[in-house]
């Protein structure tokens, strides 16, 4: 498992990236992160939802109740225009940052 500090720095970027692919709800977001990271990264309820609410309050994402036949309604999140700008910016920063850190620690390119 990774340290909470590491996760904290990247959670917004992960959520934004996932929502950039397609709008989805909180439970699925948690699952997607877990699956895509091959089980290496997991978020529990207590850490995921406060982040979602903060991002929503900042206007990066917006939630909307969606009802599908035979299912209970869920709150689906999607990127806002502002969220898309933030995502582009964070992606750039992340790439530059990890490249720089790799140079320092002498590892191979990611």
């Amino acid at each position, binding site marked *: 498992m990774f340290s909470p500090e590491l996760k904290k720095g990247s959670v917004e970027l992960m959520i934004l990236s996932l929502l950039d692919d397609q709008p989805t*709800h*909180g439970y699925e977001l948690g699952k997607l992160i877990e699956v895509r990271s091959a089980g290496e990264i997991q978020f529990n*309820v*207590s850490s995921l939802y406060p982040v979602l*609410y903060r991002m929503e309050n900042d206007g990066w994402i917006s939630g909307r109740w969606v009802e599908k036949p035979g299912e209970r309604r869920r*709150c689906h999140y999607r990127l806002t225009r502002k969220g898309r700008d933030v995502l582009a910016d964070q992606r750039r920063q992340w790439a530059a940052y990890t490249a720089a850190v790799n140079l320092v620690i002498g590892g191979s390119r990611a």
Partner: protein
Amino acid sequence: MRDWKAYVRARLALPALRGLRDERIVEELAGQLEDLCREHLARGVPEAEAEELAAAHVTDWDELARRITTAERKNRQPVAAEWVEDRARDLERRGRTGAVAAELVRNIRYALRSARREPGFWAVTVLILGLGIGATTAIFSVVDGVLLKSLPYHQPDRLVYFDGGSFPMPRVADFVEHTTSFASLTGVWDEEMDWTGGDRPLQLNAALVLPGYLELFDAQLAVGRLLLEEDFQGAPHRAVLSWGAWQRLFGGDPGAVGRSLTMDGNPVQIVGVLDAGFASPAGLTGRERDVFVALDPHWQELQVSWWFVIEVYGRLREGVTVAVAQDELDAAIARLADVHPQLHRSRDGNLRAVTLLPLQTSLTGSVRGSLQLLLGAVGLLLLIACANVANLLLARGTERHHELAVRSAIGAGRIRILAQVLTESLIFALAGGLVGVVVAIGGVRAFEMWNPGGIPLIERVAVDGRVLAFALAVSLLTGVLFGTAPALQGARLNVSAMLKEGGRAGEGRDRGRLRRTLVVVEIAMALVLLTGAGLLFNSFLHLTSVRPGFDAAHLAGVELRMGDDRYDEQARVQFVRRLLPRIERIPGVRAAAVSITVPFQYYGGRRRGWWQERYVNDEGAEIEQSTMIQPVSPNFFATIGAELRGDDLSSSAADEFPIPVVLSQSLADRLFEDRNPIGRGFQGLQQQGGLKQLRVVGVVSGLHHWGLDQGDRTMLYVSWERWGADMAMTALVVRTAGDPAAVLPALRDAIWELDPDMALPNVFTVSQRMAQSVATPKFYSALLIAFAAVALLLAAGGIYGAMLYTVGRRRRELAVRAALGADGRRLLRLVLWQSARVTALGLAIGGGGALAATRALRGMLFGVSATDPTTLTAVAVLMGSVALGASLVPAWRAARANPVEAMRAE
């Protein structure tokens, strides 16, 4: 499967139920836990265990709540609301009372949040309330300072004034000797004195005071000593200075004590200077005396029954009421009337009654009515503002009601809803109160600056603690007043219908009726104010359109002070004979004359002069007519440009017999009825030798000498040299070709050339005095017009809002009508008709109210009755047109009702 929502709600302690937002969080988290649980179930875990596993995803609920709250707060909550929230949580931990307090605090937070959401609405509401509360507070602070605050004396309630004018000294001595109700009884003789000891001749306001006067009003000394018994012996010769005069005349030099002033030619020694804080009753009314001279009650010259000079003040004994003292005084006067009839009976044999007035009443009696009227008017304005705000709150759209319905649905009881809405109203009102205090401070300054003078105790008017307390009380009261209707409305909401229909169900008949009632009330009250303002304005127009009966625009006047020992009768005649030709040589001067007073030199109640009442006319009939004798120099009437029938008094009038006189038309009518008075003889001018033979040479008509509202007073004009030169009171009147103000300096110089020691405190143009004489009615009518204008505006706003609301609510109906073929004009009429009904009802009620209320104005009106039909009609038409005008926009909107659009909106 477990009820996850209940599970989450029981554990997640969010700070407050913030309506839908918090509900969503609960539901979402519950969904998440349910999904996790299902996941475990799908793997074949038994249900109970699956639930435990899911629940284990959240270990620290408090931490989660804190994180969510932090996330939610970001960029959303104002700092104030956050603070309030923290306090609420603190309180809630303290149990039941704490919970109530927390609820209150939350309600405050709601209000603050709604203020952020609807800044425009809040601004308008707070501004309207601020104006209403501010105007009321400003007028209250004037009323408080003038009428309510107690006087700055020890036990001021025990101080009384003997209302009955001035008294001759022997009568005062009778009061002292034959009453026991008074711990102290003393008096003062206000006199103007000329002081000629300095570089320039100066006029001083002197008070000749009986023993005990200064002590009665708590005089304290700054320098020297107070007046002692030995100072009150013989002719006035010892005095104390007021602080102001000490500073002005001596620059605060302590060496002033011991010096002698020459007052009216007599030496008066200064023995002390009064403390800066001392104010005599005259000082409280803005006419502070410069010097207080000891007056010996036994001074020989005072011991006559006909010299009415002493004003009497007293302090009641402990425990004695004004009524008891009055009874004793009445009895004493009745008893003494047989012993000293010349003192206690008037010439017609009636008792000369004296009314004891509490000192404060006596000082403020002249303005009490006007100030109470203003307070009433501004109170009406405040009520209109309240009705207006209540209307605004009711009109606040459906969103708010939806919010209330949600709160109600999630368990808030009626009381809580009521409390929430009322809290919000009170916060509105308090914010309005804050604005009001600012308005009041400005208003009081404006009042002090623009008031026409003559308001006693005005220096004590201040926006102080008392006034702030009043503003607070008024704010709270208005909050309750305008908040009640919306609060009750809120508590009565039909929740399920509201939620179901998106809020429209609550918009029923009730609310429309309530709003229309408020508009009716607004129109009615505005009409009352308008009527008052209209009457005062009409009265002012009548007053200023009175023709004074002389050429007021080109007259200047100078009071000639020839009262001291240097002048006797002969010297005055010589002075005037030398002066008039010099004055007439001044460029721009057309004519000059003297008399004892110039028209408008004194106006209103202050009439000074020589009165006579007995005449025998040409047919031998004895006629009693109180008349003012006005000695004038030759060509007086030509000088002032009066309408004179017959002749002016000629320069030989002083020596002729029978004595030539000019009458006012009113006196001529009284003496000779419809006979032509010119040339007729009669008897009058009583002196020691009985009545004199007089002959009418001229009749002057329409001369308003004492004020535009004073009518044609009965006057008898005689030769100044023969009948006026023995009196100190003399005035020069000058007619100019151009602006009389331009010659004033030249007039002064010409007088000082002849007598460099003459004090000239009164050099004026008559038109300026005339403007002053109508300044008071002008001020009050302007103030009332301002109030009425605001009231009109508010009422117009009220009816505009109500009609807009009605049109909005009936949009569908109007659209259907339009679809069925009603043209725009018909829809316009439909709305205007409704507005007209509301307006008519308001006018009817307001008209009745106005008829009752304007009775209070009676004493202030000139040439207009309190029920003047022209004014009443005019203001009703004005109010009606404004109300209909205000509904034109909503009506026009209705006329354009578009069937398609309205249907689509459904």
